[in-house]
């Protein structure tokens, strides 16, 4: 009742905008509902009558087949190993360097810092060709190392962490110096615990980016057992148009997308803050 009363009191323009957004929301939801529906249908039934998606009977046969035949498990594990290792390394490197730039007054610090930020302008796509040759020279393609190492030194991470460490009041670190703490002890016991929010931003942003990365693993991982989830899923959908197993394919996308969606719903606040914070910088 209260909501209805409020809606009546709303000006016309606002009411139209609200209706538009609700329609958009339905449009946004529809593909997801349809995909879930298809994934729960018998493949032969879909061939005969594509419109049967929105009516019973439903089956979970596609998901059972998935666990039996698919390499999704291997790819999922690869993605997890690559994304977690990459994220941890980015955090270590960025925190160390960010602290160094923020607090160690070595000569030429500003020049080195600016030199480090120049890389912000280099898009990953612009260096894939030489990067591929580089890893090729060391025969490192189709290894975890090749998937993990590029992008560990991220100017964005340096930028974010340096700004955050600079914002920590200098007096707190001075108190620690008077408390006989070494430089590394100050970093480890004082600065790092205080930088957890920035690390969460950088960590979530990096993890999402690596998990969803497509171009580099596509180039570097050419053997199916080294595929990440993104590349593996891409390989299965090459001839979707001729595929008889539409339900099976859609079950794959649901299966692969669900972990990320669940994580997102649980950590929504942090994910949104991380992504927005990273974009605004």
């Amino acid at each position, binding site marked *: 009742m209260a909501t209805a009363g409020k809606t009546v009191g709303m000006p016309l323009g606002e009411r139209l905008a609200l209706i*538009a*957004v609700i329609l958009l929301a339905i449009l946004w939801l529809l593909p997801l509902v349809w995909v879930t529906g298809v994934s729960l249908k018998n493949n032969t039934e879909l061939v005969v009558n594509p419109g049967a998606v929105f009516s019973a009977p439903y089956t979970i046969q596609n998901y059972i087949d998935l666990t039996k035949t698919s390499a999704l498990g291997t790819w999922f594990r690869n993605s997890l190993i690559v994304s977690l290792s990459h994220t941890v390394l980015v955090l270590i490197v960025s925190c160390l360097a960010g602290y160094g730039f923020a607090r160690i007054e070595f000569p030429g610090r500003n020049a080195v810092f600016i030199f480090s930020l120049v890389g912000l302008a280099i898009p990953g796509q612009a260096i894939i*060709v030489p990067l591929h040759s580089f890893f090729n020279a060391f025969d490192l393609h189709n290894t975890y190392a090749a998937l993990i190492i590029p992008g560990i030194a991220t100017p964005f991470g340096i930028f974010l962490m340096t700004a955050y460490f600079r914002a920590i009041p200098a007096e707190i670190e001075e108190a620690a110096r008077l408390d006989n703490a070494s430089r590394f002890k100050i970093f480890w016991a004082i600065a790092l615990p205080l930088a957890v929010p920035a690390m969460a931003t950088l960590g979530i942003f990096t993890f999402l980016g690596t998990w969803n990365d497509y171009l580099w693993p596509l180039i570097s991982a050419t053997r199916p057992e080294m595929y990440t989830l993104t590349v593996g899923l891409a390989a299965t959908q090459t001839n979707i148009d001729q595929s008889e197993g539409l339900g099976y394919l859609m079950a794959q996308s649901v299966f692969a997308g669900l972990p990320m969606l669940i994580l997102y719903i649980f950590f929504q606040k942090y994910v949104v803050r991380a992504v927005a914070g990273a974009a605004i910088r």
Partner: protein
Amino acid sequence: MSRTSQPGARAPKLRTWHWPELLFIAPFLILYVTFLLFPMAWGFWMSFNYYDLFAGFSEYIGLENYQQLFADQIYRRAVVNTFVFVAITVPPLVILGLLIALVLNRQTWWSAVLRTLFFGSTVLSVTIVTLIWRGVYLPQKGLLDNFLNAIGVGGIGILQDPNLALVGIAVTTVWWGIGLPMVLFLAALQQVPGEIYEAAKLDNASPWQTLWSITIPSIWRTVVLVIIIQIIAHFQVFGQINLMTGGGPNNSTRSMVQFIYESGFRQWTAGFASAAAQVLFVIMVIAAGLQFWASRRKQEF
């Protein structure tokens, strides 16, 4: 007084930093130079060479790659496609993102649910998004053609149509990417102090006037920033296109990054691909400069 010091004796200075402390930035600098700056420079050098990745053969050829690139009909088409793609993707992302943010900027359970929904698609990887949308766009069997058949228009097989394929990819991209502009606008709207709206009410401003003379000017800096961020992001479009159409039909969806990918890793002509990458780099530097300029400007009212 001078219990421990001789007059004029030089005492060691209080050190403000020590050499070992440079180990804090050393790992970054080494990796940064090795895996970002060096490849960048090498790519620049490659672009002046004939460089066959497959055979590992290379020879200096000056500007030939660039001449060949600008004469290449497919590359020209890719450049046009990329600009068109940006032009039809960024406006709906910004306008719909702003509309959604304006409507959902309230503390109710349903707006929270809708925010979750609109941002949810953004966390999915490009492969999942394209898998979903290739299903939706599937000729006859897909959701879209099912719907078009049901209302009597008849299926169109949108990704198979050279005139519509890029639009189809753009729709997918908007569906995928609406979350970011929305949350950026929401963050900006929450920064606008509530007193301004109260003052506007006291000044008898209509909701429409409030929107145009208070809200939009207050978040204008974010609007500019979002536009630039979106332009930068979508200039680099690759995954959706490679997965949904592979650049086809008839090169109607091939983008600049896909062109780099294909010339580098399908034809293995690394020098040629590097030349194309340098062009992308220049465009990105200009865009990054714009972003830097926009983010440094003061909030204007």
